[in-house]
């Protein structure tokens, strides 16, 4: 899960610590020693397993190199040129875009609806919240397997439910666009509770007297929602938009469990393509180019988020 951070230099203010009574060099050296001892391991791990590989990934993206092969050949931007001109790229980008837009948009819309429902003082809402949130804490791979069975065209629960409405089950596993639809449904089911919960927290920040005032002015509940509640929820919506987008762009385990990117690449997102090229086809250099492209995409999303936060801070 990505986190929203205070932008550098704005929110994160260190309170003044008491000035050291004695500013001897021994004291300072001791502090340095303790700092190295306490912060050192964590920072070293971050450098070793986050920063170093990030730089290496950029470097690898300029090489033609197969995983496990001793020979690597420098190809400059060759991998990028190949990626941008490949036949599969259009499909990968379309799949990634459709998957991201539908999962994020769907989760936000349905999650808001669920949150509004769960915010009302209705009997059993605590239990309903628990049920809605539970899928979020489960293993994506396990959830994928479970739903694969539910979508089984003959013996799956979905086929039976569709039968109640007189519909026959489509070939979820094989006939486009159903595999993608299937993954989107599972992803929505898994994340809906999280979105609803964040919206619930946001709803608690909407002052009740504003709603009351709107009601006194004769506003219908729908009008109050549109003109009072939704605008006040805008920061929450924005937070969810960004974090859900980052999560969707990186999702892997559900796709791996359910479709393995198939059939015919119809569920291969950019993230899945990186895995596929790197670890199945063994083309580590080419996959690193894909990883760099994904990284730039994610960075763009984060940058938008940062700018927005900064603006909010300025207004405050």
């Amino acid at each position: 899960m990505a986190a929203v951070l205070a932008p550098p230099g704005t929110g994160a203010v260190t309170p003044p610590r008491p000035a050291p009574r004695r500013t001897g060099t021994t004291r300072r050296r001791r502090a340095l020693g303790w700092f190295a001892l306490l912060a050192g391991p964590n920072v070293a791990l971050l450098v070793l397993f986050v920063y170093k590989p990030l730089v290496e990934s950029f470097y690898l993206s300029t090489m033609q190199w197969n995983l496990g092969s001793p020979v690597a050949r420098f190809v400059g931007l060759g991998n990028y040129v190949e990626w941008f001109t490949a036949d599969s790229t259009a499909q990968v980008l379309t799949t990634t875009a459709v998957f991201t837009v539908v999962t994020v948009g769907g989760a936000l819309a349905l999650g808001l609806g669920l949150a509004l429902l769960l915010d009302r003082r209705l009997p059993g809402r605590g239990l309903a919240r628990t049920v809605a949130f539970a899928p979020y804490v489960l293993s994506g791979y396990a959830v994928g397997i479970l739903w694969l069975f539910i979508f089984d065209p003959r013996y799956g629960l979905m086929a039976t439910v569709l039968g109640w409405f007189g519909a026959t089950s489509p070939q979820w596993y094989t006939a486009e666009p159903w595999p993608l639809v299937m993954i989107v449904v599972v992803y929505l089911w898994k994340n809906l509770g999280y979105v609803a919960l964040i919206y619930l927290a946001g709803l608690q920040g909407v002052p009740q007297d504003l709603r009351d005032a709107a009601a006194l002015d004769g506003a219908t509940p729908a009008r109050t929602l549109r003109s009072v509640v939704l605008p006040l929820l805008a920061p929450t919506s924005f937070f969810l938009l960004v974090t859900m987008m980052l999560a969707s762009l990186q999702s892997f385990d559900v796709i791996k469990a359910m479709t393995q990117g198939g059939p015919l690449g119809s569920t291969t997102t950019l993230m899945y393509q990186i895995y596929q090229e790197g670890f199945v086809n063994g083309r580590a250099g080419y996959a690193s180019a894909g990883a760099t492209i994904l990284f730039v995409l994610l960075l763009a999303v984060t940058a938008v988020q940062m700018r927005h936060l900064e603006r909010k801070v300025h207004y405050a």
Partner: protein
Amino acid sequence: MSVQTAPRPAADAAGPPRPPAPAPRPTAPGARRRTPRALLLDATGWVTMTLASLVLGAPLLWMLLASLKAPDELYRLPLQWLPESLDLANYAQAAGTVPLGQLFANSVGLTIVGAGLKVVLGLCCAYALVFLDVPFRRTVFYVVIAALMIPPQITIIPNYTFVASLGWLNTYQGILVPGLASAFGTFLFRQHFLSLPASVLEAAELDGAGHWRRLWRFVVPMSLPTVAAVGLVSVVTEWNDYLWPFLVVDDARKMTLPVGLTLLQNIDGMTNWGVLLAATVVVTLPILLVFLLLQRRLVAGLTTGAVTG
């Protein structure tokens, strides 16, 4: 039991309220006496909510029930919800195909050790960032939080080759070590430490308590809710982690449960749903129980960082 959103006034935090109880929140004028219209609205809301919960909860219930069905029941049409008898054959067969007990032990061990180390590393690092006056600590802080913006998926290929060069493929340390650094935990701990009363720590220092003692005897006990939240979130993510352990391990005895599920899925050429679902229950049930028991803390941890208002 109920999931509560994190920042909630205490008065409102107890269980699902019953309608006759006086609402602690001031209600709108006119809403005190329920008009027939308001009642109808409530009834519609309740029905919708119940339906939504049923739809959202049905897959989990279905999984549990289906895992207890004998094969012929599973493939009998029309489908029926309840198994005829509680049949554990699927579980036995899953355990016979993959070393389920070993996988379970691996998952439990790696989750506890991984989450524990993450919390310790985060606590130590955050303590240093807040309470040790060194000139470059702000820079170090930026190095830590900037790591949050680097998605782990981008670093898998170089990390994989690095771990392979260390000879760590198919080892527990290969699964564990690359994910240990705790950027998010450090960030949360730091935010919390900044809010601690400085006087307590000054008093401790005057009494001659060193940094190590100050951290574990004063700072940590004052930060237990945050420690619990970070620990629980780490437990959930470690338990569910898939891509990295899947890449690093292909020896069935070193696998974690989610990876073992892949193995099971691949072994059964023609999918044996009962067996697969039994294993799925083994993967999901422990974390589901953790969630049900520790809901509020877990939710508080998983939803921190959200902008509220």
